[in-house]
Each structure stands twice: as structure tokens, then as C-alpha cells.
């Protein structure tokens, strides 16, 4: 039996999630006494193939397929590789690009797909643990099939490290150009303004519970009183209340301030990915079950509309 994990790269770099996929693959291969194969499609396959040669990896498959990810190419390459290797479990990343091709791969292979795994176990069946309702609850999902495709949430497995003794093998995929219906023409960095939130020592960060744009003044006043920089979670930026360069999280900036004050932020996984490296995290939220309290060092379970003005007053 074989577990196959497919790495991810972008603009000349193997992305961190790749080593996490290797680690998840290792756990699964160890539990099921399987071989662990790793693959990389496109990019600098010589360098990536070498990097992915981690301890306990049996084979690294490198597939020449252009410099950047293209889902139509990846779908065809991975489909052919799966036909050749026949892995019991195919592991792909639950990233933006993973979401752009994993469902198509599963569909073509006619294998069940479970996405966004935070844990994996094998008894008789493969059991995938995932979260529901914005991380409020966890669920286990059993896959009643002998083959499956699973996408793995970034940041859940500690990355594989070190050098292994895998054989690195080039795999020739035949890409049918007539099936390539999309073309990547470039990349664009989010426009940044005059404030760099990644430079701030203290961030006052505001989330959905602020409810109305007018209420932002409450947190602005607090940030001013503390001499802190204002940042935000995604809904505030989606609403156009603050510019994109203020957004903390997976699709925004990763910040590591001394103090991060999360106000009315529930702490969805995409947000936490951007701020978990802060030295001290303080959360104010009226929902005692909000996931933000799982990573906060200090917390107040109360209405921000009561606490924030009182806190501002303390510093005036």
C-alpha cells in the first residue's frame, strides 16, 4: 500500500505546507504500514525533489510541467501519477490552489473527497477529523471506500525535517493541451498604503462584532490612546471599512507584534494563521466559545461596546 502526498510551490519556492503534507503522509503510512511517496508537479523540480527527500519518504516523483501551478496541468499530471502509483490515500493541501484542483482530481479518479482535515486515523476505514460551523464543533467522517482523496489543513502537522534516502524519480506526464482551459498571465501584490501592520509593536485588531462602520471609532480611539496600530479581520476589509493592507490572516498579513488585542474577532482558522505568533494575545469577545480564546493569553468575555470605551478611558 502507498500514501501519496503532492507538494505545493509558487513563484520559485516550495511552500511550507509541503513539509506538513509529508508529515501527515508519514503518520498515515506509519499507521497502515504503507510506503510514502511524495510528488511535485512543475517548478524547479530538481531543487524541490531534493528538498522533499525527507526521512521515511520512499519515493519522490518529480513531474516537469511548467514554472507555475496551472490546475488543468496539475489535474492531468496527478491523475496519471495516481494511475501509476495507485495510492490508497492521496493527500493534497487545503490551500487556495489545492481548492482549485483537488475536487477535479477526485472527480476524475472517481474517488471520494474529504477536505480540510485537521487529523487522520485508520481503523477499518479512514477517519478524517474536520471542523464545522466556523470551528465551533469537530466532526469525524468515515470513508467507506478503499481509495480516497483528502486535503489537509495548513498548520496542523509539524513540518517534516531532515534528509532522507528516497529515490527521486522523474515521472513523464502527457499533458493534453486541448484540456487546458485556463492560462495564468501574472501575479499581483495587494497594494500597500503608508501603514505597515507587520512593523507594529502593538496591534488593536477589530472584527465582525463591531457591527457597523460608525462603531470603528471606538477601536480607533482605543488604538490612539494606546499608541497602537489599527488592524482588522477579513469581514471589516470585505465591507470596505478598512483598506486591505490592514488585514491580518491567511489572505492578509502575518503579524508578530508584542501585544495583539483582538476585539470582537471570533478567531477563525484563517485569521489565527496570521497572528498566532504574537507574544501576548488578548481577546475581548462576548462569545465564551469563540475559538480566539483557545489561543489567547488573556481574555474578557463581555460585550466589546462596554469594555472598549472603559479601557480607552483608563489610558486618557
Amino acid at each position: 500500500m502507498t500514501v501519496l502526498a503532492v507538494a505545493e510551490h509558487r513563484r520559485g519556492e516550495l511552500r511550507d505546507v509541503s513539509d506538513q503534507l509529508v508529515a501527515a503522509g508519514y503518520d498515515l503510512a506509519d499507521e497502515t504500514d504503507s510506503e510514502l511517496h511524495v510528488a511535485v508537479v512543475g517548478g524547479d523540480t530538481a531543487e524541490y525533489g531534493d528538498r522533499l527527500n525527507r526521512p521515511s519518504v520512499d519515493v519522490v516523483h518529480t513531474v516537469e510541467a511548467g514554472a507555475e501551478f496551472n490546475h488543468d496541468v496539475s489535474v492531468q499530471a496527478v491523475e496519471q501519477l495516481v494511475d501509476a502509483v495507485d495510492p490508497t490515500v492521496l493527500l493534497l493541501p487545503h490551500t487556495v490552489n489545492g481548492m482549485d484542483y483537488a475536487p477535479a482530481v477526485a472527480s476524475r479518479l472517481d474517488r471520494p473527497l474529504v477536505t480540510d482535515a485537521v487529523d487522520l486515523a485508520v481503523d477499518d476505514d479512514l477517519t478524517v477529523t474536520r471542523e464545522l460551523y466556523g470551528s465551533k464543533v469537530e466532526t469525524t467522517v468515515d470513508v467507506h471506500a478503499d481509495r480516497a482523496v483528502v486535503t489537509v489543513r495548513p498548520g496542523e502537522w509539524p513540518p517534516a525535517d531532515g534528509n532522507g534516502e528516497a529515490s527521486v524519480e522523474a515521472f513523464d506526464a502527457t499533458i493534453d493541451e486541448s484540456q487546458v482551459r485556463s492560462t495564468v498571465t501574472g501575479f499581483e501584490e495587494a497594494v500597500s498604503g503608508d501603514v505597515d501592520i507587520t512593523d507594529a509593536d502593538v496591534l488593536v485588531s477589530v472584527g465582525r462584532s463591531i457591527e457597523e462602520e460608525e462603531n470603528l471609532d471606538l477601536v480607533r480611539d482605543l488604538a490612539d490612546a494606546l499608541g497602537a496600530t489599527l488592524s482588522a479581520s477579513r469581514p471589516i476589509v470585505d465591507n470596505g471599512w478598512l483598506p486591505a493592507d490592514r488585514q491580518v490572516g491567511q489572505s492578509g498579513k502575518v503579524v508578530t507584534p508584542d501585544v495583539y488585542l483582538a476585539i470582537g474577532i471570533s478567531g477563525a482558522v484563517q485569521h489565527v494563521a496570521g497572528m498566532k505568533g504574537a507574544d501576548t494575545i488578548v481577546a475581548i469577545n462576548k462569545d465564551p466559545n469563540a475559538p480566539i480564546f483557545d489561543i489567547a493569553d488573556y481574555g474578557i468575555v463581555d460585550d466589546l461596546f462596554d469594555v472598549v470605551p472603559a479601557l480607552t478611558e483608563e489610558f486618557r
Partner: protein
Amino acid sequence: MKILVTVKEVTVVDDEFEIDGLSIDDRYVTYDLNEWDEYAVEEAVTIAEDVEDVEVVTVTVGPERADETIRQALAKGADRAVRVWDDRLAEASMLDPATKARLLGAVAEEEDPDLVLTGVQSGDDSLGATGVSLAERLEMGWAAVVNQLDLSADEGVAHVHRELEGGVDEISDVELPAVLTIQTGINDPRYASLRGIRQAQSKDLAVKSLDDLGLGPDALDSPIEQTALYEPETEGEATLFEGGAGETAGELAGLLREKGVGQ
């Protein structure tokens, strides 16, 4: 031109809740139009306003209760709606992507749209796989996590930005017909006007069974089964300040001063 928008009625769970077997106790849930789908509906309706002769059809899989949700899309400007339902779906706690793609795909095949818009993911199951599964099933092009869309119907191409991690967009051209999964923030979803809400009541909402769509009962066979639902063990070791707002704010102020903040 025809645009098909898939929408979902999602389960919204209260802050405080109880679990009943494999679901959240009814007393603690409400239902709403999926947040991502609101942006997909808005994108479709905006295109229909800008381009002549565009019909916007919304489709959902859901029980009678979901009529309320799909009427929200009609009130915002969609022209008509299709709801797919079979009572056996009530027992399926989590629909796998392939089943969803089969059901929605059957409607898409009848409608033959030029463009299909879905939300990136749903706020409850968050599988994030419906759109791309559907595209593959329909043999259409696709792009996932689209945060900018410029449709060039004459050229038969959608120019899109895909929102990658870390504040980087990928810029792509996708051949039509295509399925695009729409990210929040791509537009500013409108509120339904009173007139829109009134009009929505008289717009066509067709309910289709598996039979109507030419699907056999095995269309619902799912290889995945939800086996447990529980509250995750809290990993938190947060020190909580307790008391009234004045008290807790005072204690937090003390802590912040200790850390050298606001000095």
C-alpha cells in the same frame, strides 16, 4: 447569456448551543443564505445589469424551508430559481462533493448556462469543493477563489483574479463556459429592496425531484459518513478577567501597562 448561481441555505449556530447526536440541537440554530453565495448572487446580478439579455437562475439543494433563502436571491435580482429535493436527503448529515455535483450538475445540464457562479465554500460544512467538482462534471473550465471578475463574453473568456494566500492575486484567463467560485469582498452585496422582496414572491421557483432530473435513487449514494460530532477540547489557557466592564477594563489596563503599552 445565462448565468447559473448555486446557493446554499446554511445552518448558523448560536454562541451557546447543545449537540443532539450528529447535529446541533434545533433550539440553537437558525438558517440563512450562505455568506459566500451572497457575493456570487451580487456578481451575477451586477453582470445582468451591465450586459444586455442576461438571465440569472439560482439553484439550491434543500428542503421546503430553503425557499425562504432562495427567495432572498430572487429579491436581490435573480430571475428565477430551482430547488432540488428528495426526502432521503434529510437523513444525510453531510453531502459529499460528488453527490452535490451530481444534483446541481443535473440542473446545470438542463439549464445549459454560459457561466456558473458558486461561493468559495459554505459557512457550515466548509468543504469548499462544490464549484470545482461541478465544473469537472460539466466538463467546463473553472477558477477557484475569485476576487475580481471581468467578463469578456465576446471573446468567450473570463479574466479573473484568484486570491492566493499572503495578499497575492493570481491573474488568469478562463475559457467560457466556466464555473467560478466567488470569494467574499469581490463586491458589495446589496440589500433587497422592498420592491424586490415583493417581486420575488411571484418569481418562478421550480421544485425538482430526482425523477424530474432523470436521476436514479443511487444518485444519493455517498461513500462518506459522519460518525461523531463534539465540541473540541479547549486548548485555551487564557487568563480571564472577570467582573463588570469597569473592573475587567481596569485589570486589562494594568496588564497592558506592565507590558509597556500606552506609556
